[in-house]
């Protein structure tokens, strides 16, 4: 398919008056999307987005800097750019020990011991940058390519581009369990101007009904009876007016909703998972914060198996020093806070990688791990770190990514990205590329412009592709 296909679809009214004119017969989640856009053969079909809200310190994890040890307590030798809290201290060495891991021998600290065991599965990009020092803008930027609400999230773009593989499940799911959405609110996961079918749906794993209003208010057979009655009535109405097919697609929509009521609980039920799998994900761990994240990670695998395109995992603040919306945000006592946060996600994510691998799904599932920015190599106060958007690390695994590779670099102190400087646009260009989409061609005419997830930017990280 080509751009002309997109244009034709837009002409049909996706941009303005909506599907009403298009009279599509299938009211599934994927109906408003460009099914199988396929600019080129895809490596991956789904994305799992491990979002570390608040900002992981790259110098304490995937980009260790021996120079920080040497210069600990000294004044930064370069000018310090404006930080959010303007309480800039001296160079601050990492509380964690760096070592080389995997056959690739990449230098990483021992902050994430389990993920370190997957060193050869992950590709680390050390030259990430963002334009914003603030959480909300950073979150919007990382998710949508723009710093404010109103633009579609990457998960929405991907669903718009590829459509859903499962019409009974949303294609864009945000998992949560005792977590709060990052600063900026739910609009971070918005469909923006894209069709509403692509918007992020929350699955709250704490709740017996992970999707709002998914629990049938009446017994199913009673509902079935009512829906059948209603269908007769609605068909009569559809016959009496022009464009009755729109009414009927709304009727179909009720049928989808009816099926979801039974199918969503089936998908979210993990009681049939073997104990060793649950243990691997940490579900039975007495650390409930880790167990909750493990539940999300396991659910991500199940959803990907069901064909969901984009699943995002959320971190909890249960023991960290940040706040509920930005739990990685250790402005003080980073040694304690980051240790707690890393413990929460480390084992579950490593388990997810090996579980997917074992099932042969890692090749088609792209895992992305990032926060909205990194943290400063100098201290904030005595023992915290402020936000650093000028250089930080993200890693990717699976989905045709060359495990063991490392791309880009920050300066000797880890302050600024200096080699192969990258942005969220490059990240999403790469993700889209692996999904078979040319990021420059995934456009939507809105407000007089052909909008893109990558705006007018974006270069695929070819060096980390297998």
């Amino acid at each position, binding site marked *: 398919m080509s*751009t002309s296909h997109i244009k034709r679809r837009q002409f049909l009214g996706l941009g*303005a*008056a909506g*599907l*009403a*004119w298009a009279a599509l017969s299938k*009211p599934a*989640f994927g109906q408003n999307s460009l099914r199988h856009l396929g600019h080129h053969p895809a490596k991956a079909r789904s994305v799992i987005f491990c979002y570390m809200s608040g900002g992981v310190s790259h110098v304490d994890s995937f980009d260790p800097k021996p120079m920080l040890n040497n210069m600990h307590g000294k004044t930064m030798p370069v000018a310090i750019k*404006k930080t959010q809290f*303007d309480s800039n201290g001296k160079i601050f060495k990492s509380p964690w020990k760096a070592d080389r891991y995997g056959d690739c021998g990449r230098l990483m600290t021992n902050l994430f011991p389990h993920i370190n065991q997957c060193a050869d599965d992950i590709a680390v990009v050390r030259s990430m940058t963002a*334009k914003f020092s*603030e*959480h*909300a*803008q950073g979150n919007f930027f990382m998710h949508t390519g723009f*710093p*404010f609400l*109103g633009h579609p999230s990457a998960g929405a773009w991907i669903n718009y581009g590829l459509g859903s593989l499962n019409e009974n499940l949303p294609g864009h799911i945000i998992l949560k369990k005792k977590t709060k959405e990052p600063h*900026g*609110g*739910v*609009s971070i996961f*918005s469909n923006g101007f894209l069709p*509403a079918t692509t918007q992020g*749906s929350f699955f709250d794993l704490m709740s017996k009904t992970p*999707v*709002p*209003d*998914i*629990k*049938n*208010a*009446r017994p199913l057979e*009673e509902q079935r*009876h*009512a829906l059948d*009655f*209603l269908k007769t*009535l*609605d068909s*009569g*109405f559809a016959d*009496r007016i*022009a*464009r009755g097919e*729109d*009414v009927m*697609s*709304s*009727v179909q*929509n*009720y049928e*989808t*909703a*009816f099926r979801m*009521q039974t199918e969503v609980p089936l998908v979210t039920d993990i009681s049939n998972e073997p104990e060793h799998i649950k243990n691997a994900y940490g579900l039975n761990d007495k650390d409930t914060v880790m167990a909750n994240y493990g539940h999300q990670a396991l659910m991500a695998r199940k959803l990907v198996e069901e064909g969901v395109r984009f699943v995002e995992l959320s971190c909890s603040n249960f023991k960290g020093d940040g706040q509920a919306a930005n739990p990685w945000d250790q402005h003080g006592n980073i040694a304690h806070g980051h240790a707690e946060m890393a413990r929460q996600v480390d084992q579950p994510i490593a388990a997810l990688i090996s579980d997917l691998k074992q099932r042969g799904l890692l090749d088609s599932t792209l895992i992305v791990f990032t926060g909205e920015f990194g943290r400063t190599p100098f201290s904030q106060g005595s023992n915290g770190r402020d936000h650093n958007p000028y250089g930080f690390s993200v890693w990717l695994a699976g989905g045709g990514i060359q495990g063991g590779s490392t791309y880009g670099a920050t300066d000797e102190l880890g302050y600024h990205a200096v080699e192969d400087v990258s942005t969220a646009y490059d990240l999403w260009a790469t993700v889209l590329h692996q999904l078979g989409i040319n990021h420059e061609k995934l456009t939507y005419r809105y*407000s*007089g*412009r*052909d909008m893109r997830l990558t705006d007018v930017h974006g270069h695929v990280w070819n060096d980390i592709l297998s």
Partner: protein
Amino acid sequence: MYFSTSSQPLLIRTASTLILASILALNPTSLSAKPAPLTAAEQSFFETNIRPVLAEHCYECHNSVNKKKGELALDWRDALLAGGENGKVIIPGNPSESRLIQAIRHENDLDMPNKAPKLTGSVIRDFETWVKMGAPDPRTKKPSASDLEKSKVPWQVVRDRRAQWWSFQPLHVTNPPTPKSDAGVINTIDHFILAKLNTTGLDYAPKANRHTLIRRLTLLLTGLPPNPQDVKQFVESKDPKFYEKQVDALLASEEYGRTWARHWMDWYRYAESHGSEGDPIIPQASRYRDYLITALNQDVPYNQLLKEHIAGDLLPHPRINEKTQINESAIGPAHFRMVAHGFGVTDSYDEQITFTDNQIDVMTKAMMGLTVSCARCHNHKFDPISQKDFYKFYGIMIGNKHTSVLIDSKSKQDAGKKEMRNLKKDIRNGLADAWLKETATLTKRLTDLSALQPEPTPLPPRKKKMTRKENERRRKAEIKHRAVSDSYKAFHNSGHPFHAWTLRKMSKDDLQKAISTHQHYSGEIDTGNEAARREAVTYWDFRKPAYVDKWHALGNGIGSSASPAGSFSLHADGDSVCNGIYPSGLYTHLLSKKHSTVWASSDFYIKGKRGQALLAGSDSRAKLNIRNYPLVNGLLHPSMDMKTTFNWADLTRKWAYWQDDYAYLHIETSNKKNSWFGIRELLIGDRGMRNETVSLFDLIDSTSTILDQDSLLDAYTRTLVRTIGNWKNGIMTDKEAAFLDAFVRWGVLENSLTKLPAPLQIKIKSYRKFESTITLARRAPGLLESDPVNQPILARGDYKQEGPRVKRGFLEVFGGGTYSKGSGRLELADDMVSKKNTLKTRLLVNRLWAYIFGQGLVSSTDNFGRLGAEPTHPDLLDYLAIDFEKNGWSIKHSLKQMVMSRTFRSQSLDSPITRETDPQNKNLSYFTPRRLSAEAIHDSIATLAKGSVSRAIFKPGRRNRLDPFMIAFNQPIPVSTVSARKNTNVPAQALTMMNKYSVQYSQALHEKLSRDKSITTADQRLDALFMICFSRPITQSEREHCETFLAGPKGNLRGLCEALLNSKEIIYVY
């Protein structure tokens, strides 16, 4: 008048087909690009038809100087013939095989120019001819950078050609055509619609029945379904004017405004918070919503509302709401404040660009249907809007501070002022006389002052464990102790008026020594301060008329210039009378602390080591705003400290952080309680200011006579008598004012109401009575007009590349013109509604049309530019716009024309022919059925189930917590202008309707039916249920279905109600 082939370059009209024929005839074999010199005819054809198009549409991306997309350059012959990375683009002599031709024809998945409208047919034909001719090309030399630059088509040429687009032409009067058929034409609208319909061989669909019509009218005009009584009356009416009467009644209903204001809110991205971290609220944002509802219900002329939206706070004759005494006009600009803001902004320029861009984007889309903000980085790609145009508007925007404005009418703001001013004169005289008498007993009065006693002994250490009561007692004791010891310390500072009294026990020599120490100290402070003022980067003395342009204020508290020394304020209640006697300065509370003021300094650059202001106040908020960034809440945006006496306060601790940026000081009184502030000076520079001393030794005529306690007392008495006298006569100095203030504040001079002379008490009570009628001013989000700014143009939108400043003014395409009054808002408001602007009313009537008929005559209701659509009925559109302007810009008038028309009254049923020939019903042969808006769905279901509803328009609009139901049904996220909502179909809608809404409301509907005593049979129950839900009688087959349902398992009435609430008919207007 409309140029449907508007992209035709103007330059190409000179070539004639005759010449063309002769070229082809003379060169029958010239089928290769010839190096040979071109004939005159070839040369002319290329220069007139080919070169200008290549230069305008192709060179930018395909040149041999700086950009060669696809390795293809088209700026000279050899490069063009060489082709790009995919081979040759021109096969001379063979247009169809030439990829360049395919690309401009949009064939084979090629479409050029990229991301732009297709070139017009005649241009494409010219290129085909040219290739057929052998692609004769005189451009034999590779162009240099300067050649390329010169080859650019001048902006004026591009702009003027683009200005040929239909929407930039003046409104055009056409006589309404006469339709061939005469299917009951009712008004002028029908002439236009039916005439066009007839040209396609069609006619109107039959008229809808009365049940359908009243439901349609009521839903569209009031957003609610009709109640069964109204339906009955309408259906049974014998009055020949029943239809019109119903329309009038609906337009007059309060619910009309509550529906149509929501459309307006979509245009201006209404929100009650700024989004981002913490989602800070926009205080009083809902005033704007209420303003819209009121204005629409009153049918305020649209041109008035447009002007109010830009400059309502500046109009010389604002609209005053007689009932509420609210200055409605002043609320208009509130939408400018509904921008999103970043929270912990570290790059203030970037933030300013982002929100100013949004202000311009929304204003121009909402009022003109133009995407002016697309011209931020370069001239507009498709429309006649230059980059300068964007920065003209940018300057207009940033010449205003973001603040809250006071919306009480002038007369309400000024109530009681005159009387209070007069009484205050008497009170001043009365107080002065009473105090002069008291100077005779000054010894006792000073001695009684407890704080002058020895230093208070420290409190005993806290007990480890205390009960809650003990804790509370301890807390109070600590507060009291702190107050006493603070004043003890203050009095022992040699700058304090009472300091000299603490020295009374000293020997003569020690006294004289102390006096000279003080004079030295005081002198040092004065010299230091003088030097600081002299060397300041910026120094503004707000006491002086010379600096009156350095501050801007709104409100009834502050005057237009500084108040003299000795100005004083009175307490509104309680036993204390005088609140303070002040040195010269700007004050907000000289008549009442209930008066309100919003104040801003001019912008200043953040330079040097510090910024300070000499401030006093209570419960007001002072804050440094960097580049108009107005957030106030949270740790990152601290307010400045204020005390009730003047103090040099630091503007921010982040002075170094914001170095070289610019900012202003913003101070406002509280909108929740009595408050005030005063300001005297502002200083930016390296040196710090120190508070000047107010000692007896600074004021006494001669210090040499002070030798002991008696002579000290004598000095105090003499000074005080002189000071009070000067106060009474209105000639006191700043220092005297501060000196006298201390005596009153500490009660050394009587300040207790009950102890003052009786006649004075009467005056004070009378004053307080007037004051008691004052209420805190009501506010709305708004703008405070301040220093005019001409914004530098930003090359490629990059603020690190500021270019020349652009004078504020109107769009070039409408004749430009520059503005000189203040920010320019008032002039912009005038231009916006002037004849120059050809878009404003077309845009509005088209939107009204779209809400009534389901789609606009111009389908792109937010874009009237080149990427938008052309009108399906251009003459009708202009007729409607002219008719609207002629009839007082009355929205209700235009809506009435539309719903009165025959066009509106058709059934919403299409025929096989219309389905085939006009599937989108652009010719309006029938009424287009459609799903209701989120609000109408919510309100309809609640109304028909319960009979009344708190309407969805009143739900809070917090950006980070948008209502899931509203969003599921396509209420837009508040980002930019939306006048045509999307209409999507997602399972979330079905889930929420099926498992929540219908369950929630079926009970009420069931009870409503059960309560109705007039219903006695099962048949009547079904009749009533269908009438309530669908405003129409039940059909026989529906009755049978319902009966079957009720007879089935679990088939009960409540279940039927619930099912019907899920029916699609309820959420459709048809």
